[in-house]
């Protein structure tokens, strides 16, 4: 028998909550194991459904030395006995068995919380699958997806894709692969627009940001999208109120260093900085008017208006008009 080109790590820790990435890490572990031994079989068990004897059975080498991949799911819920058994095994892994431990990084009990650290210490290969929350990371993910599928994507096309598909990684990955397959591999904005239209996610804050800088067409468009997507009226109204009061608060404090003002205003420096930009063009009279509008709107979306959508649009119009007040 020839020696395999790659030997799979006998002990792997998949840490994080991003489902798609976790799924991929498990698949990668299985693939490397199959590369070493095509007969290797996969068994997935939830930790909570497992007893230490069962675990020992799963992890003992078989008579004919077939490869085996054991995936322990939801290790963050492990009880004390199981956690101890896993750590004990990790110190002396058996031959031909790949143990993959899925752990969200959280966990309620102390042993479950400390499991990742113990596995690291035992020399486990760690795959980080933390949730992707930052827009930059998401863009990087999409770019990487496209590259994996053998294509390239323009920055404008990337922005258009994320806007149209949303933030779900599975959908983004699928869309990226599909686009590469449908085009010659070079994805332009026009290509994205041909297959994807509309917006997947519009929050009240997007509406508020456009409204407070006086961008009427943009604000109304965002508002209609938000309504189309079923964003609650109250959320949009609250976001508008929050936007206006942030600008008013920062404007009333005058110009200054955002980092120094942050403490007095009770908001983070980046917010102060952004609001300072948005505050340009606002007069005290305009802000006072806008504050009345959002206060009235708050009552209207809570049942005072016959049609809350109309109330929202009217409020956006009136705030933009207040922005132009001398």
């Amino acid at each position, binding site marked *: 028998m020839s020696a395999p080109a790659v030997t799979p790590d006998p002990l792997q820790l998949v840490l994080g909550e991003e489902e798609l990435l976790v799924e991929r890490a498990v698949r990668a572990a299985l693939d490397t194991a199959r590369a070493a031994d095509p007969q290797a079989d996969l068994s997935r068990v939830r930790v909570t459904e497992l007893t230490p004897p069962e675990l020992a059975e799963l992890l003992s080498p078989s008579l004919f030395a077939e490869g085996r991949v054991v995936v322990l799911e939801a290790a963050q819920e492990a009880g004390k006995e199981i956690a101890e058994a896993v750590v004990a095994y990790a110190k002396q892994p058996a031959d031909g068995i790949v143990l993959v431990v899925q752990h969200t990084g959280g966990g309620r009990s102390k042993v479950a919380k400390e499991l990742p650290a113990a596995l690291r210490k035992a020399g486990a290969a760690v795959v980080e699958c933390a949730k992707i929350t930052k827009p930059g990371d998401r863009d990087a993910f999409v770019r990487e997806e496209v590259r994996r599928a053998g294509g390239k994507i323009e920055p404008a096309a990337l922005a258009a894709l994320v806007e149209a598909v949303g933030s779900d990684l599975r959908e983004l990955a699928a869309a990226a692969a599909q686009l590469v397959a449908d085009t010659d591999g070079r994805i332009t904005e026009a290509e994205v627009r041909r297959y994807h239209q509309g917006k997947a996610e519009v929050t009240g804050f997007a509406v508020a940001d456009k409204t407070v800088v006086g961008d009427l067409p943009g604000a109304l468009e965002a508002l209609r999208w938000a309504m189309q997507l079923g964003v609650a009226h109250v959320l949009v109204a*609250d976001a508008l*109120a929050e936007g206006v*009061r942030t600008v*008013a*608060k920062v*404007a*009333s*404090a*005058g110009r200054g260093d955002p980092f120094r003002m942050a403490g007095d205003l009770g908001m983070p420096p980046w917010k102060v900085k952004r609001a300072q930009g948005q505050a340009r063009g606002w007069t*005290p*009279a305009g*802000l*006072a008017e806008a*504050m*009345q509008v*959002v*206060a*009235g709107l*708050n*009552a209207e979306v*809570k*049942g*005072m208006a016959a049609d809350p959508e109309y109330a929202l649009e009217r409020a956006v119009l009136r705030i933009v008009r207040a922005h132009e007040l001398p």
Partner: protein
Amino acid sequence: MTVWADVVGQPDAVQVLSTAAEAAADLVAGKPTTPGAMTHAWLFTGPPGSGRSTAAKAFAAALQCVAPGGPRGCGDCAACRTVLAGTHADVRVVVPEGLSISVAEMRALVQLAARRPTTGRWQIVIVEDADRLTEGAANALLKAVEEPPDRTVFLLCAPSDHPEDVSVTIRSRCRSIALRTPPAAAIAEVLERRDGVEPQLAGWAASVCGGHIGRARRLSTDQAARERRESVLAIPLALRRFSDIFPNADTLVKAAEAEAVTANESRNASETEALKTAMGAGGTGKGTASATRGAAGALKELERRQKSRATRTQRDSLDLALVDLMGFYRDVLVTKSGAEVALNHPDRAADATTAAASWTAESTLRRLEAVLSCRDALQQNVKPRIAIEAMVTALHRG
């Protein structure tokens, strides 16, 4: 001392009620009475703090009074004392702590009201804040109020008999007792007599409370309440620049939030603890696990009630501040017009004069309007911070 002593400055109402109590006693004794002197449903209306619920309780005591001979409502017999203390078996008092009185609560009450009185006199149901009855709750009550059993009496209290406060259908089935704003002298007198307040402090509290007896007592006995009032009344003249708006609005909202927390904190904790114990928490031995199974749901229900109570406290406290502000702007208008009437805040006369000199009557009125619409907004469930900030902005702009 009779039960009427605490019904401050309401001679007319006391006259009607004591006549009714005499007639009721005759009814119980089986003697002939003047028809119409006693009725089965009463609606006590009057401005906040005029003592609606006190009057209702005093009337209840007079109805239950067991003193042999003499006018009803002696204040000394066991019945009078237990009614006033809220422990009489035949007197139910409904005091809404949350934002409204639910229909379920009223249905239970209607069943209670159908029972015969245990003492053989009257079964009495007092609903304080009948304006907080939801529409469904009011309808549930309707039938019982219209034709209660022989010896059942309903006493409802509401700020006014306006349809906004009490539904027309309820009002038309009740006999109305209108209380008036008690005069300052009467309030000062009761503060001295009942609460043992220094005459000077009592006089001051009675003059600034706007006819609200409870508020006068609070102001005369609670240092923190006096400080809060000071800080609220300092706002109108403190709004010089645009940047003064947010700190001042923040003061108002924070004070209300703090009051909601301090008023309910210890009570919430002990309630939660008691419920947990009742649901079997901390127990050991066989069967404890199954006993605690329903605990989470019950706890959640309790938390919901506590939250409603906290919202109510916060709103009430904000409303109090707004009423004080309104009084101040009214004083400014009065000063400006040169009318010789008593001010709402006589101790702030100097401020009112300063303001009257610099504001026009129109801008003062606009400010008054802003406070009024803020009170409405809070009623309509607008976030307090948003409503208050909008109001303070309007106060600054005039």
